[in-house]
């Protein structure tokens, strides 16, 4: 029988995941739909991971308010969900008096937004805060409340928490059609959502957190007409040994369209530089280009001269789902009943996500959804201890408790079999899913040595044959078939 939910959330990116988790604290039946094989595999995966400091946007935008609120919610969230997060602070580096004038504006904006602790800095102060800065930096802004997070790990743990509290996660559910049942305005009014592969579910309330495809989903529900403009960002990842690893996130002075290209010290010890900002028409265009390589490195080296292309491990591209006016669009639909738009969530969407969830919860409440707290709700999820972050003593104890901690699968990032198994048992059954959950394959050899070991563990744990295992779902198969006769002549 087709399952019926109080709330269906479309899209398991950071917004959808945060919303589903927030709502899971109430006595509601909730479904979280994701069209990809794993959660966070859309916009959220290729995010820069910056938790913003609340000074980039003007106070009259919704996103400024949610950015400030969201930022403040991160400490509690991390205590409950154990994702990698560090409030390392943000610096904006200015090279001229002209740039210092813009920094002054940012400062004023930050103060107006209520950003905590931001300060204007002279050159000496900037170099004290980040000794690796270019010596030509003459001053800038310091936002101590800014930080960095591993965005996909945040999403994974939000979803894990949601599922722990009863949310049904449906991956590979690509909403292709919608039917309405019951009379308009009546209590029994419902939506039937059909997946492109024929599966269907029912829901009373629907939340459109479909990222790049929020416009298409809105159309399917007969709701507002708007267009999501994908804006591509390319980033480069540098080895954990790279000397360019800074103590803080370093921004250039922004221009009117973009915050510019940054130097980001990831929580896991690598360094990321980028992103570019390029309009594109194709919502699946994740290709990188050679021209941007020069641009990104030039820009990053201007901030931190020790950035070197010799340290590149990999590069990738992500898409931001932007709306024409640049703000978030979070509202109950005026055209479709019990349908909530969560669209245009580009930067600072990651920062704002916990606040977006709170905001959407309030919208539902105002719209008449009854919210009764669930006494069984658990805010915390069990942590998966990571071999690489343990002391020798802890490693010893972990291996004694579970011998699989002694089997190191990924030698570059020191990931053990126990962590790979934990990833698979939490539903991450593609190579990329395991990579993003555990970091196996994310290091300098890029899976050259660990891929076949992970394939073997995946086969053992899931029973999937070799040729059914994929990099990230659909047709991203790894090997085609077994060696057999008659195909060789």
């Amino acid at each position, binding site marked *: 029988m087709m399952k019926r939910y109080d709330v269906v959330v479309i899209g398991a990116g950071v917004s959808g995941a945060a919303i589903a988790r927030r709502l899971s604290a109430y006595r509601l039946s909730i479904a979280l739909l994701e069209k990809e094989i794993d959660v966070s595999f859309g916009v959220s995966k290729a995010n820069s991971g910056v938790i913003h400091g609340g000074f980039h946007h003007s106070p009259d935008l919704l996103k400024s308010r949610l950015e400030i609120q969201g930022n403040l919610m991160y400490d509690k969230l991390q205590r409950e969900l154990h994702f990698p997060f560090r409030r390392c602070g943000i610096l904006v580096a200015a090279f001229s008096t002209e740039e210092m004038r813009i920094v002054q504006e940012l400062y004023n904006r930050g103060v107006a937004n209520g950003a905590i602790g931001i300060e204007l800095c002279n050159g000496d102060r900037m170099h004290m805060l980040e000794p690796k800065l270019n010596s030509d930096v003459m001053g800038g802004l310091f936002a101590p409340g800014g930080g960095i997070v591993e965005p996909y790990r945040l999403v994974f743990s939000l979803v894990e928490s949601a599922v722990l509290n009863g949310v049904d996660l449906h991956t590979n559910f690509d909403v292709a059609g919608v039917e309405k049942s019951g009379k308009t305005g009546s209590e029994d009014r419902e939506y039937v959502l059909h997946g492109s592969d024929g599966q269907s579910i029912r829901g009373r309330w629907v939340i459109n957190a479909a990222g790049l495809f929020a416009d298409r989903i809105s159309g399917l529900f007969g709701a507002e007409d708007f267009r999501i403009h994908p804006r591509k960002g390319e980033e480069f990842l540098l080895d954990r040994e790279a000397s360019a690893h800074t103590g803080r996130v370093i921004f250039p002075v922004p221009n009117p369209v973009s915050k510019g290209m940054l130097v980001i010290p990831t929580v896991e010890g690598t360094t990321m530089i980028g992103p570019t900002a390029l309009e594109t028409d194709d919502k699946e265009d994740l290709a990188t280009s050679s021209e941007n390589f020069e641009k990104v490195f030039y820009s990053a080296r201007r901030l931190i001269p020790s950035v070197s292309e010799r340290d590149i491990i990999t590069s990738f591209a992500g898409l931001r789902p932007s709306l024409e006016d640049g703000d978030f669009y979070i509202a109950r639909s005026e055209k479709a009943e019990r349908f909530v738009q969560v669209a245009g969530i580009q930067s600072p969407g990651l920062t704002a996500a916990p606040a977006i969830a709170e905001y959407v919860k309030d919208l539902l409440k105002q719209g008449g959804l009854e919210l009764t707290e669930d006494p069984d709700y658990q805010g915390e999820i069990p942590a998966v201890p990571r071999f690489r972050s343990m002391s*020798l003593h802890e490693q010893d104890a972990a291996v004694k408790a579970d011998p699989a901690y002694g*089997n190191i699968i990924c030698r570059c990032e020191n990931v053990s079999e126990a962590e790979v198994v934990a990833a698979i048992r939490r539903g991450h059954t593609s190579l990329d899913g395991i990579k993003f959950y555990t970091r196996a394959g994310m290091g300098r*050899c*890029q899976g050259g040595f660990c891929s*076949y070991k992970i394939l073997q563990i995946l086969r053992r744990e899931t029973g999937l044959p070799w040729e059914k295992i994929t990099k990230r779902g659909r047709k*991203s*198969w790894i090997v085609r078939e077994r060696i057999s006769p008659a195909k060789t002549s």
Partner: protein
Amino acid sequence: MKHTEFDAVVIGGGASGLSAAAEMSRGGASVAVVEREETLGGILNQCIHNGFGLHQYNEELTGPEYAERCIRDLDGLSVKVFTGMTVTLMETEEGTQLLYGFSRESGMVRFRCRAIVLAMGCRERNRGNLGTPGTRPSGIFTAGLAQRLVNIDGMVPGRECVIVGSGDIGLIMARRMTWIGARVRGVIEIQPYPAGITRNIVQCLRDFDIPLYLSHSITRIYGKDRISGVDVAPVRNAGGEASGAFHIPCDTLLLSVGLVPENEISRKAGVRLHPETGGPVVDARYMTSVTGIFACGNVLHVHDLVDYASEEARHCGQAVLDYLSGVSAGEQLRVGAGRNVKYVVPGRFALTGKNRFYLRSMITGTGARLCVRLGGIEVLRRKLPYVQPSEMISFDLAADEDAISSRFTTGGDETDLEVSLEIPEKEGA
């Protein structure tokens, strides 16, 4: 945590590690080998083609056969082997070495020893290192990973294949892919000459009419889920988007674009690395910049023949025995790469006994001469029939040669011995 003690611990159970271990054990040392795979033999196990062992055993063996001989060499010796064990940390403590290994079977083990031999081999350069633009689909493998999937696991990675890089692994994989029923649509080499040996060009490419595109590179990768094709363009001064570019559809891309010695734990232990080889800087007895830590095989510099790696490992094993028995290394001269030489290993010359050196040429051609100069005076000169970057050159130099003993110099920051390759001026025809 288990505690255990040896005279020497070898990290890595491939050809080099096993050869060094056997040598040390025969010399009376107590030795352990720590190997992260479940079986000994290292990468040889997946190199099922022949061509190994001509120097060591005077016969042509396949990789697994060579590995099995190395393993059998341990028979009758008391080398303790830990398989499935990864070393995550090395520490030096007052002249002794501490080493931490983890495995499913033994849990956490702390080894205390007087000497460590690094023999971890190398890893392959990958797409991230190439920086080729385009999408990130599945179906892009380093040649070694594909070789593993085919030869050990029995899988067909795909049916329409393009190979980047004409090094020997890439060429061998062109034949292997063809022999499992795939079609290899081309091998793309950025240099104007092939990186692999002639025999492989003939028997792995020409036998199957596989085109070799010299002075070409791939400029873009296509495919959303699985790779669907690559753009190939002739190399020009910049980029390569010049005329003559073309597209090859494929479902598999193999990368054979170089090897890098794996020295992450060495570096953490304070071992100094050589900018050209990527391996540790070692003295005449293969000791790194950290007293008591030695290195040999592909972790030291990338060899093209396993025979040389084994040979080097035995020298290293001998040197460790000397170290363990307190024999002084004595005076050593610095050795440096001169004209047309990419690097020379080891970087020191011992003033006692025979010294063997390995070097890589930067030039290709016939009639080159190997010249060794001591303080500017030639002490060795040898004619080489043919040199090319892909073939390692080795030579011996004895300390008691007159030219050397009469010009005994030590110390200083200057290179004392300089090794170069010289193309003679045209001498008639």
